[in-house]
């Protein structure tokens, strides 16, 4: 019953327009549509906010600012994703109006057909990227290849930071024709690690302590962060035999040009 107090909190227009005949109804309808397509689905908030794995929204009150923030930014380390990259501010506002309208909703949930319209799917913000940059981005992170740039380079929050932070390259480095470097580079930070059990592999040292050494093992793909006890290590050699060519062997020259265009674009943001 305490949730019914939420009626008072609901926007005045909604109270004044229970039948949805005013302008707000269009906003609310848009929110309803977006909710059905993005929030009610699967294991999320359930039809009309009736609860599933994610919390019930029906019959509850939420502050507008809180809803805007949570929808836009998500809740870190929870199942609530950020929608700011997929929804416009107007759409987020429409969702807020709709969710606040659920505060006064009865416990009885409408059948899904009443809300599942044939409207277009959730809007995806149009990318402003140049075609080559967009192609480079796809290649950089391409999930269909086991060997891809993001295995060793973290850029825009995605990837494993084994190697150089490409966002911190100098202007001169970015301006250079990188295809040759990507093809024939011999990264000095890749060393040859030899273990006492006879195993040897190219490695990037992350941390070297008296008792334990942490390295990225580059023998396979993806790289493995290994914590080795000093007693396991025979020695660390300057030359590993590893070449950057191994990391880009699945990419054509045009692919690498596109990747570099993306790196340039990302580094300047």
């Amino acid at each position, binding site marked *: 019953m305490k949730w019914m107090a939420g009626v008072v909190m609901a926007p005045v227009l909604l109270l004044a327009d229970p039948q949805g005949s005013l302008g707000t109804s269009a906003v609310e309808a848009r929110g309803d549509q977006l909710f*059905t*397509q*993005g929030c*009610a*689905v*699967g*294991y*999320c908030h*359930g*039809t009309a906010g*009736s*609860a*599933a*794995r*994610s919390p*019930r929204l029906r019959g509850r009150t939420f502050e507008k600012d809180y809803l805007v923030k949570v929808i836009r930014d*998500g809740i*870190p*380390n*929870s*199942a*609530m*994703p*950020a929608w700011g990259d*997929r929804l416009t501010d107007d759409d987020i506002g429409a969702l807020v109006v709709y969710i606040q309208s659920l505060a006064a909703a009865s*416990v009885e*949930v*409408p*059948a*899904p*057909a*009443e*809300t*599942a*319209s*044939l409207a277009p*799917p*959730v809007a*995806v913000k149009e990318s402003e990227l140049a075609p080559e940059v967009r192609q480079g981005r796809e290649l950089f*992170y391409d*999930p*269909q290849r*086991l060997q891809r740039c*993001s*295995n060793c380079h973290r850029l825009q*929050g*995605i*990837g*494993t930071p084994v190697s150089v932070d490409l966002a911190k390259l100098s202007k001169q480095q970015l301006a250079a024709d990188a295809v040759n470097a990507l093809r024939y580079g011999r990264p000095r930070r890749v060393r040859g690690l030899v273990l006492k059990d006879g*195993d040897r592999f190219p490695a990037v040292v992350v941390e070297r302590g008296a008792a334990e050494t942490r390295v990225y*093992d580059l*023998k*396979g*793909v*993806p*790289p*493995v*962060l*290994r*914590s080795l006890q000093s007693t396991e290590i025979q020695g660390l050699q300057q030359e590993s035999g590893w070449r950057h060519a191994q990391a880009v062997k699945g990419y054509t020259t045009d692919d690498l040009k596109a990747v570099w265009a993306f790196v340039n674009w990302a580094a300047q943001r």
Partner: protein
Amino acid sequence: MHRMITLLMAVGVGVWAQDGSTKENWPAYGGQNSAWRYSALDQVNVENVSQLAAAWVFQTGDNDGGLQSTPLVMDGVMYVSTSHNRVFALDAVTGKRLWSYIYELPKTFTTFYGPWNRGVAVADGRLVMGTLDNHVVALDAKSGRQLWKVNVEDANQCGCNITAAPLVARGKVIVGVTGGDSAHRGYLNAFDLKTGRHLWRFWTIPGPGEKGHETWPGDSWKFGGGATWMTGSFDETLGMVYWAVGNPAADFYGGNRKGDNLFTDSIVALDVETGRLKWHFQQVPHDVWDWDAAYENVLVDLPVNGQVRKLLINVSKGGYTYVLDRTNGAFVTAWPVAKNINWISGVGPKGELLGRNEPVVGRSKLICPSIGGGRSWNHGAWSPKAGLFFTTGIEWCQEVAAQAETPVEGKTYFGGTFKLVKTPDGKSGGHLAAYNPMTGKAVWQYDYKYPLLASVLATAGDLIFTGDAEGDFFALDAGTGKKLWRFNTGSGHRGSSITYAVNGRQYIATPSGWGSAVAGLMQQFWPETEQFPNGSAVFVFALPEQKR
């Protein structure tokens, strides 16, 4: 000893061909890699189970999502994993903490398929676990020290992660992935247990040029789901790994993936050394109901028309139990574990679906069972002694409406909404039944007002253990289904109980802690369950010393 003799007489030579029973240890997620969840221990039995008493309790301290894991026991040490990838090693006699490990999660990421973890694997002195941010880590089982860690795919990109226990076979860590309700292409990976190096990947959705790719139009194969979100099985003699592959995405809308959508909703058998496909059996071609084939594959050897065959039992989310020949994938039989099934009218003699009843776009339709499944992922148990397969089932339906959706990599991709509703006969709830695996005939059935969402444990003491939503952990007579003992742990059961022995004393251990996606869904239908408390503890029981 007389118990063992009875056991052999019950099922003939089959028991020698594939012994999946556990004894002192509980070494793998399903007990052994044949996934029986059956223990040969019989110190606790139908005669004395009423004397069973709490020996110790371990509180993990992380209630979020409950406690859904299967503890493992090796040589007197219990290993239990919790939500957020915490691992505890405990003295299995006293519950004393030996070491703990807290996985360092990134500060920001979305745990759409989390935050729970369903178990770890332990072998050759190493403990391995999949993580919420889609890594695999290996720890020293003696100290908890991290040995290696590898990123399978960036969780912020794929929207996927790992919640299931890995399977270890021949020194390989074989581990699946979630992501079946997202725009993601599923896979199964093998890593070297010692070094963490990647050994092979099996894509559950074939790429261009591969067999089965023709069942995916356009780019739909890139976003088609096919998660491997539970744990597989392994037959050492055949060298085959068995995994059940989840639903295609979008779950309810198949308009942009017209075709069979291989290998979703399939059981796949892979060569353990190479990951190459040996055979597959697809339960649901072009699934539009979210009927994963994700659950356990129980490997048993049983007579079929008088001849012992190597079989595999898999209960699907759509509510049917499939029995296949695990040497070649041949269909043997299928039978339902729920009464309320209307998405098909039945399964034909070759395993084909009869009378498909599909959701439609923009219009609500009654489909039974609900998306929560005719059974959830909680594991069944096979008792060779009883010759019975014990599994839960759920009676519930949903009003579902499909909707067209455009995939966005790593984002949710369901293609529909639903509302849970009662079954047409007005009765809904759960049950646990004892089935003849070849006929599907139930010897007995135990009914419960809510779905039963904990795994089942069978023992040579003629006992069946499981727990319920209200916190009762209980023992049934395997032969009759009669309740012989119960203990309320204060929070509902969503994990998997085990049994083990140390210094000649048998223990029964159960995770307790309500949570999970399906537990969340229950609120739609049973609003009072919103008030059911979370928890996260391991309860361990034994007979009083003088009673043994």
